[in-house]
């Protein structure tokens, strides 16, 4: 699918008849993400290099979407997670609905938020990005809109009308397209139990320097008030792979300070190390526990945060010690609109 999307997007950019690109899913999901099972199979049957090839293609697609010359409108009427986010959030317009469910759930699997998530998560308000990336929390359409992951919210029953109107637009002018989507948009309400009502606590805790300190800060807050949300948050952190948590935290924080291209290059390095499995086998253990055997009881190694040293985390961000390996090379882009230039 990635190859096909790449082909299409590259063709559409050159085709002067194409003014904008609309992306939508079929059925209950927009896109639930990469086929982890297939990737693991590739790695087990072949080598991690096969998995790396897939990531190379996917990140290339992410880069092209992020720097696309024409507006992309993604209709997120359902689940949008992992790779699905990579195929949509980088685009100019993201339309959420009451059916949207967003998440970057990688740390529970021994992975880390990739597909340029270190770019887009880190640019959310305050330290919400750290919160989403480390806990894998799910957001609904209203929450996506309010934090900026979505640009518009359109009730699902108006989607076909919206699509019709967009097809009639015949313009690449983002102002015009935005105006059209606005006509079908509505202002949604954030549910009472939303994490977004807890931005104060999130900012206070997820701004701490280390994963350990983030958890201690949450535990301190939990002492003072009995709260489902806090205990759920602490739980999801305690269940995730310690290595993944530390990698993700560092990646998001570094991503905040870099352009989208640099973010993808960095994520590619980390992905290669994760797939190679030399530094840690958490990806394979996560796949086994959550997706294969489904016992939901992964035995991470190292098993505790204190056992994951800074040097170990450093290794994931370094070059691979492999003759045939090279850093992700992103395609040359030209004639970018100002809004895309600012992402470099």
């Amino acid at each position, binding site marked *: 699918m990635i190859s096909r999307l790449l082909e299409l997007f590259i063709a559409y950019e050159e085709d002067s008849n194409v003014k904008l690109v609309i992306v939508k899913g079929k059925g209950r999901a927009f896109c639930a993400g990469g086929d982890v099972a297939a990737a693991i199979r590739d790695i087990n049957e072949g080598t991690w290099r096969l998995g790396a090839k897939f990531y190379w293609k996917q990140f290339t697609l992410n880069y092209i979407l992020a720097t696309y010359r024409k507006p992309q409108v993604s209709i997120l009427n359902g689940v949008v997670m992992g790779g699905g986010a990579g195929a949509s959030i980088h685009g100019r317009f993201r339309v959420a609905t009451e059916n949207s469910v967003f998440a970057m759930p990688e740390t529970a699997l021994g992975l880390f938020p990739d597909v340029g998530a270190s770019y887009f998560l880190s640019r959310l308000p305050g330290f919400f990005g750290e919160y989403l990336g480390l806990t894998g929390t799910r957001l609904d359409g209203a929450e996506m809109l309010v934090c900026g992951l979505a640009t518009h919210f359109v009730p699902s029953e108006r989607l076909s009308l919206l699509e019709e109107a967009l097809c009639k637009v015949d313009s690449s002018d983002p102002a015009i397209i935005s105006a059209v989507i606005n006509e079908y948009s509505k202002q949604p309400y954030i549910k009472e139990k939303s994490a977004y009502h807890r931005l104060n606590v999130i900012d206070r805790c997820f701004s701490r320097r280390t994963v350990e300190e983030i958890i201690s800060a949450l535990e301190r807050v939990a002492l003072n008030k009995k709260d489902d949300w806090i205990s759920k948050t602490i739980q999801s952190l305690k269940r995730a792979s310690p290595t993944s948590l530390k990698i993700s935290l560092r990646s998001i924080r*570094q991503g905040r300070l870099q352009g989208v291209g640099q973010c993808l290059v960095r994520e590619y390095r980390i992905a290669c190390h994760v797939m190679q499995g030399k530094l840690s086998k958490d990806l394979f253990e996560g796949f086994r526990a959550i997706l294969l055997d489904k016992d939901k009881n992964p035995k991470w190694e190292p098993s505790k945060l204190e056992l994951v040293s800074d040097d170990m985390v450093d290794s994931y961000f370094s070059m691979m010690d492999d003759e045939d390996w090279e850093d992700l090379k992103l395609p040359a882009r030209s004639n970018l609109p100002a809004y895309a230039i600012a992402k470099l």
Partner: protein
Amino acid sequence: MEQQITRRTQVLTNHLLLHGEPTSLSAAPPLSSNSCLNYSPPELNEPLSFNPTDMRVYLDSHNIPDRDWLFGLITQSRLFNPKQRGHKVFFSPDYNQSMEQQREMTMKRVLYLLEKGVFQGWLTERNPDAELRKFALLEVVGIFDHSLAIKLGVHFFLWGGAIQFFGTKRHHDKWLRDTENYVVKGCFAMTELGHGSNVRGIETVTTYDSNTGEFVINTPCESAQKYWIGGAANHATHTIVFSQLNINGENQGVHALIAQIRDADGNVCPNIRIADCGHKIGLNGVDNGQIWFDNVRIPRENLLNSVADVSPDGQYLSAIKDPDQRFAAFLAPLTSGRITISASAIYTSKIGLAIAIRYSLTRRAFSVAPNGREVLLLDYPSHQRRLLPLLAKTYAMSFAGNYLKQIYVKRTPESNKLIHVLSSAFKATFTWHNMRNLQECREACGGQGLKTENLVGHLKGEYDVQSTFEGDNNVLMQQVSKALLAVYIAAKKSNKPFKGFGLEHMNNPCPVIPSQLTSSTLRCSKFQTDAFFLRERDLLNRFAAEVSQFQAQGESKEYAFILSYQLAEDLGRAYSERELLQTFIQTEATVPAGSLKNVLALLRSMYALICLEEDAAFLRYGYLSMDNAAAVRKEVTKLCSDLRPHALALVTSFGIPDAFLSPIAFNWIDANAWASV
């Protein structure tokens, strides 16, 4: 005639209707977009020959994730003056605010960082890792604002450092935690109106009253008032006071005591007078004050007694009998200030270069070919020559600064002397470089360099003080040459080989410079170190000879030294540059083979050769012939064009986030567009 009139009318009509050619009216649109300048980001036009994040590891060298964390704390808060320019947001203090507002904002930011846990362990954890993290975080603060870094420097490194190094356990227990948590706000009253560089000459006097067990601190005359005391004018509650200590009628020299100057409500304490030093050419986020002590009484325990003490009944006690040695032991711990200032100078240089070089990769002026496109600034050899050697020097200083930090955090009593000399040399060299670098970068940015928001020009005023505080650069360099002379004299006297301060090369045969300097010789590290060794060796010999000659003519040792100031200066520079070259080569050696290592080699050669070109000593004393010098000059130009393709990668490697540079480093057309106003 009629034809002429018709033709003339048509030409005029076309002008008025903006048509290129006499054609029908309905054809061409009035405006064509082709003739407008378009901004093209350097990222799209300059391929990277290496990954800048790998180079950053060598430049920042430690605590990179902690630096990124702190950058994030700043960018995710509205307290740090975010400003939207076009599609990008920049973080920089509002220098257009009044002095009072800037000081208030600075203090607010301090308290925000405190709350976020940035200062955890800055005084209560004492191991190399904690110290390195402290340095890293202070460097990041400095990238945002010099005033904020100085406020923290004064409180943690000067006040806090004095408690740590001059105080003993009772002081640590009483003050360190409260300092770390800002329960007290500290400042450092050493400098006086009449004495800055010569600390030993300060006039504040402290006596001891054995009846009450109190010290009495007094400002006996106006020249003795404390001056430039950062933090004193508005916020500080406590201060370290440096004062002559008179015990039983005998002056025991300069000592340090703790005095409270404000109560917890912010009211100035009795017998203390404070005035505001007023508006400065920069650093107006720091509230510098003047302080007078009117027989202020403090408990005996407030004497910082790690080196000397006064017993309850008024006896002066010190393990170090020699007052010179005692004073030196006293001042030794203040080295950390010189180290943080050196580092801050380098990061500021990096900001200037990142802005100027990025700008020069997108700004065009004049065409070379007729009707050709205008040429990018950095494609001009002259523009390259202005910026790329400065880039090489900044890289050299970055590596050397890291080396200095490492030996500092692992310091031993034996290494203290080296640290003192090296930090003095580097502080002078790096801060002078910073000012020169900022000026060149400002000019390279043309008119845009005059806008405060573009940073590069404004930083000149902010950082000018660096060549003066924590040791006047000229005085520091004199101290360096004095130290080298002492090593020389000791070696000659004892007839032993040279040892210490990297002078071991004096024990080898004198290096020889080949008469023909080919490109490959010029780029060879052995030739480069030989040239630097030769200069240092010869200058040290000459300097020692001149000093001893003056002494032979009857001058005192001190005065002979003063008279030989020119050679002293040359020698100080030679020592500094030789240390810089050596650390560069050492760093280069740790890099695995590949494109990164190759680029570092180019930079190292650029560093060495630009020193050869700029220091008149090489020609004056004949280390290089005129032919040699011509070859060096030519090679510098070649190196400029060799480095040109790596310019973007080299400044990206600084790891300074876009938000801390300025609009001209990015889409300056979009930033200034009407839609962005």
